[in-house]
């Protein structure tokens, strides 16, 4: 998940590189690359920005505060009633803000991530939450969840399944492990966002003028999930609202919201993210699609 636009220097560094774009989705080498990339916790850009460099309780509390200020709507998607006393699986753990909140709400929390870093982080967080079970956080693939059919009342996956290389199968897996009536909450990137609509043509023109630079699509991926050193997420899918509705046709009562938006960087006329969100513009052309549905 993008925490904020990456530092300009890093972006330029990335733009100057030519990235071979030849991964084979679904093979072990691809999974290894995904695991390596996401081993650097998703949220690290934000952590650097606010000067968080360790996992002390105070530092993480500061991170969580900044994170939830960026995504002020996030906790609204996890109503306490739906989680307390229920079995919940989170897929894709990142810095662990949401997972810790869920565990503190008295849900029987299970976590899964392809990479080691986020698993270690979430275990460290849960070790500080009384009654939570750090041993229920494991490393594994969203494409072959290590759980029996109908194991969970909730599956939560924010900004993860579109990186697996097989979004359809990842959704099928969430459906498999949910109990009948169980609730899915997932976020994936919106293909019809203001960012893609405005930035896409600019980057395409740039690519045309300077053929040595990465394609618009590759550059966009960097803006969504890029490391400070210029690495970009191995795979990212973007879907439209109707496509997501089709993908979720195996669920009942599906609701899809658009959320989050980029600031408009016009110098002294800059419009902040929060201002745009207050205007409700993210609900129209937002970056992220939040879907809630029931098995």
């Amino acid at each position: 998940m993008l925490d904020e636009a990456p530092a300009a220097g890093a972006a330029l560094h990335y733009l100057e590189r030519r990235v071979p774009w030849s991964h084979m989705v679904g093979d072990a080498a691809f999974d290894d690359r995904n695991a390596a990339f996401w081993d650097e916790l998703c949220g690290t850009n934000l952590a650097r920005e606010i000067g968080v460099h360790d996992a002390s309780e105070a530092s993480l509390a500061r991170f969580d505060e900044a994170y939830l200020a960026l995504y002020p709507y996030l906790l609204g998607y996890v109503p306490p009633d739906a989680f307390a006393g229920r079995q919940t699986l989170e897929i894709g753990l990142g810095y662990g803000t949401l997972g810790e909140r869920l565990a503190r709400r008295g849900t029987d929390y299970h976590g899964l991530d392809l990479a080691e870093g986020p698993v270690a982080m979430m275990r460290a967080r849960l070790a500080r939450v009384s009654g939570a079970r750090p041993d229920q956080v494991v490393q594994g693939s969203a494409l072959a969840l290590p759980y029996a059919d109908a194991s969970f009342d909730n599956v939560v996956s924010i900004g993860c399944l579109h990186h697996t290389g097989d979004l359809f199968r990842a959704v099928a897996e969430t459906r498999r492990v949910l109990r009948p009536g169980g609730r899915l909450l997932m976020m994936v990137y919106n293909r019809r966002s203001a960012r893609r609509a405005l930035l896409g043509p600019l980057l395409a023109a740039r690519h045309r003028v300077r053929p040595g630079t990465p394609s618009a699509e590759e550059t966009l991926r960097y803006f969504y999930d890029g490391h400070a050193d210029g690495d970009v997420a191995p795979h990212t899918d973007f879907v439209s609202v109707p496509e997501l509705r089709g993908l979720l046709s195996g669920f009942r009562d599906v609701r899809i919201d658009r959320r989050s938006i980029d600031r408009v960087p016009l110098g002294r006329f800059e419009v902040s993210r929060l201002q745009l969100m207050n205007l409700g513009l993210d609900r129209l052309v937002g970056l992220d699609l939040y879907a809630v549905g029931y098995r």
Partner: protein
Amino acid sequence: MAAADVSDRNAAFWDELCGSHLANQIGVTDASPESLARFDRAYLDLYPYLLDYFPQAAVKDRQLLEIGLGYGTLGEALARLGADYHGLDIASGPVRMMQARLARIEGAKPEQVKQGSALAMPFEDASFDEVAAIGCLHHTGDLFGAIAEVRRVLRPHGRVVIMVYNRRSLRRALAEPRQALARRRDRAGADAALRARYDASASGDAAPHTDFVTASELRGLLHGFGTVRIERRNIDPVPLPLVGGRSRDALLRSGADRLVGLDLYAVAER
């Protein structure tokens, strides 16, 4: 309705072959080769684009599974094109019909036509080069699960041709105002009446379950496939002679079905 319940009711409903209306219309009452040839001609006249989705090069000598067999026109054509044909239907009637058809084709294997569910197909992973499901998966009660199964039994780079009903068709648009009113009075009855406009038995019963999807939704459903092409096909006649009513043939020729057609044909590669 629980999935198992839909499956039981589907097995009963579809035992009366899909296409029986047409057969009645043209006076086909038996399964002699002459009668079936007459049925097939009428059927392919109705859906003149159907075989275009199965060029011989994509079919010949390949292991092909058809799901939902109906009267068997397409299945027989595929077997005659040289496909190594396998068939699956939840009802016994269509299975027997297809077995009878294949028994008359040299080299075809009637024993490869089986009764079973599209939601739990009796085939190993990656068994087929091609899967065809024309007007079937939207009746299973679990379109997503059915497509997941198709993907499972398909080999990498395998090809699928799927037809499901278009939710954004002219028929649906014209019916919508009345449908909205009818739903307020009797939701279940109105839904059944709509389903019956697409699939009804001789006694007038509606198919137990029918999903309608938009082209974009279908694109999402087929996210697990590499390249996907979706086309709208088939259309009702416009019965308004005073304002220049159009026959179905004329509309098909003019390409109106490509915009607001009843059926979505998706061709996809895994």
